[in-house]
């Protein structure tokens, strides 16, 4: 406890505090700009922080990391374009709320949910990190394989109208995911002689295409014939949800926050899995509401989950020195450059710095609330006032630049255009986007861990059912997969009965 207080006294030093606030601001902005994300920003900032004192350098980096994925929800809600990959699910209900004139409410929900998720996980980080990190080590290749299967079961849950179409899209996504060198054997698959595809289809340019370009193409159909249209400006005075709403969202926050924390602690599981699982849980728990039409829980679930992943992904890093995701891997670089080794010795040798980092996650999440609301209010009052025709041009400029910047190559712009067209065609055919993204993220994880498990078990698939955690995950996945089938069977039976009757 004393150490925690030490951390607080360090972070409230004027310079450290300013650095943290600055980091949070930068994170919000880069998160809100489609095409920029926390990874690219951290990568750029780390060499800049070379020359700084760790008391200033680290709070900046923590601030960026904490707030970027919340910043991503702002354009997801206002424009249907997620600012970062962590907000792809937020678009489903968030944008619908904006269309209903509830942009302010949606932003408020996303803010409170993010702050809740973030504080939840930063408390775990402060008090339970070593214990939780040990638990995460129980996950080996078979468990990760089972976890990927569990991730896929959310597709079955999301199937609103057509289960077949959802599964079809999922398979298409998995096929896209096989492009590039195969895991374990390194065989180049379906890369058509293009070196850029050897590492797989570039993910961020693909997302920019699926969301940014598709949205503009959709818009152009109708808007070019309209007179200059302005949104009926929604009143964004009341942003913060009232007590009734908080009470309503609290279960969603708790469940999504827990999912986010569990996924965050597991190195390599990833934010995308967390947001999909928590959205799926929200859908399953609220059968009376029609998700996809602007349901508050649809915004609260992914936003609470993604911010819970942020701080909890630092648990394996700070306790074991194992990075949970690419942003955490960049953190290792930042710490090393300062002469700090992540791991238990960090807390022994440099308690002031180590506990400052923990506390910075906590304080950063609190700062993110008011700063995020200010930015959200500002953006919604400006973005929604600009004629959409003009905004489209600016968005396209951001899209092409962001796609290029992800690998400094023009090839990424081609990827963006390709997936822009795919997204548009998908919309026309009423094929959902979300299973595609999930499949592209989980496909490689599933295949890699399957092949690794097979090496470990010398070819016997029994390894997946003889290990308790893996078995448990597979049973839960089976249950989730089965429910929509059973439900649709029931419905069919009912319909047949009513038809014949």
């Amino acid at each position, binding site marked *: 406890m004393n150490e925690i207080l030490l951390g607080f006294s360090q972070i409230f030093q004027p310079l450290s505090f300013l650095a943290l606030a600055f980091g949070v601001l930068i994170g919000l902005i880069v998160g809100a*700009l489609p095409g*920029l994300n926390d990874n*690219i*920003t951290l990568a*750029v900032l780390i060499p800049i922080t070379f020359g700084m004192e760790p008391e200033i350098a680290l709070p900046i980096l923590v601030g960026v990391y904490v707030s970027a994925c919340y910043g991503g929800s702002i354009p997801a809600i206002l424009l249907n374009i997620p600012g970062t990959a962590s907000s792809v699910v937020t678009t489903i209900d968030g944008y619908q709320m904006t269309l209903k004139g509830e942009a302010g409410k949606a932003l408020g929900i996303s803010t409170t949910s993010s702050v809740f998720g973030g504080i939840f996980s930063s408390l775990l980080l402060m008090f339970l990190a070593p214990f939780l990190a040990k638990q995460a080590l129980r996950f080996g290749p078979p468990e990760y394989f089972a976890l990927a299967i569990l991730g896929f079961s959310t597709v079955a849950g999301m199937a609103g109208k057509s289960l*077949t*179409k959802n*599964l*079809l899209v999922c*398979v*298409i996504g*998995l*096929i896209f995911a*096989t492009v590039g060198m*195969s895991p*374990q*054997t390194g*065989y180049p*698959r*379906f890369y058509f002689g293009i070196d850029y595809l050897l590492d797989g289809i570039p993910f961020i340019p693909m997302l920019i295409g699926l969301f940014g*370009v598709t949205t*503009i*193409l959709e*818009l*152009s*159909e*109708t*808007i*070019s*014939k*309209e007179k*200059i249209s302005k949104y009926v400006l929604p009143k964004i005075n009341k942003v913060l949800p009232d007590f009734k709403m908080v009470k309503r969202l609290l279960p969603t926050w708790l469940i999504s926050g827990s999912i986010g924390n569990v996924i965050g602690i597991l190195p390599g599981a990833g934010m995308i899995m967390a947001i999909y699982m928590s959205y799926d849980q929200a859908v399953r728990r609220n059968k009376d509401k029609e998700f996809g039409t602007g349901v508050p829980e649809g915004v609260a679930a992914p936003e609470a989950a993604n911010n819970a992943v942020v701080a909890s992904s630092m648990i394996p890093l700070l306790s074991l020195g194992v990075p949970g995701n690419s942003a955490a891997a960049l953190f290792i670089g930042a710490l090393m450059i300062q002469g700090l080794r992540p791991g238990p010795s960090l807390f022994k040798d440099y308690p002031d710095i180590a506990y400052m980092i923990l506390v910075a996650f906590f304080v950063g999440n609190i700062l993110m609330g008011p700063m995020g609301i200010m930015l959200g209010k500002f953006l919604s009052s400006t973005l929604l006032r600009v*004629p*959409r*025709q*003009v905004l*489209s*041009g*600016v968005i*396209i*400029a*951001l899209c*092409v*630049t962001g796609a*290029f*910047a992800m690998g*400094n190559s*023009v090839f990424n*712009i*081609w990827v963006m*255009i390709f997936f*822009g*067209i795919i997204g*548009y065609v998908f919309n*026309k*055919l*009423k*094929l959902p986007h979300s299973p595609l993204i999930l499949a592209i993220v989980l496909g490689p994880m599933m*295949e890699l861990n399957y*092949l690794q498990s097979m090496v470990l078990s010398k070819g016997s698939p029994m390894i997946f059912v003889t290990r308790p955690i893996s078995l448990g995950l597979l049973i839960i996945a089976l249950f989730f997969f089965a429910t929509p089938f059973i439900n649709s069977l029931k419905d069919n039976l009912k319909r047949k009965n009513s038809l014949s009757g």
Partner: protein
Amino acid sequence: MGWKSNIILAIFLICVGIVGLFLLKDMPEPPAMFPEILFFLLIFFSTVLLISVLKNSKDGSEKKEINYYPVLKITGGLVLYTLIIKILGYLLATFLLVIYIILVMGYPKKLITVVVSLVSVSIIFAIFKLLLNVPLPAGLFLGL
């Protein structure tokens, strides 16, 4: 979009699946295993879709006239942009792209269009090139 497009989709994906399986012929077993399963699943689900669509052929929803023209124009503009970005350089190409998109979207005020393009491209350039050190294409003539 009625059931016709769904039938086309299903048949198209079945073809993709068959072509995919054909492509896998020369691939050794471990890397080919997953794609093989996936192409079979693709054919399977497409067939399920095809059958279910053919069954419910009557509930084709009403057709809406869609104006594909601007969609094609924007896609074409993006393709052209990507082809010439290395020749014209990032600044000029993107500036022209933004003007083009705003015009295709049907915005009538030309001066605002130009000003917005100029300002937005300059800001984006400043963020990416100057702050983030992204090596945006320089172009053959201007060297920027």
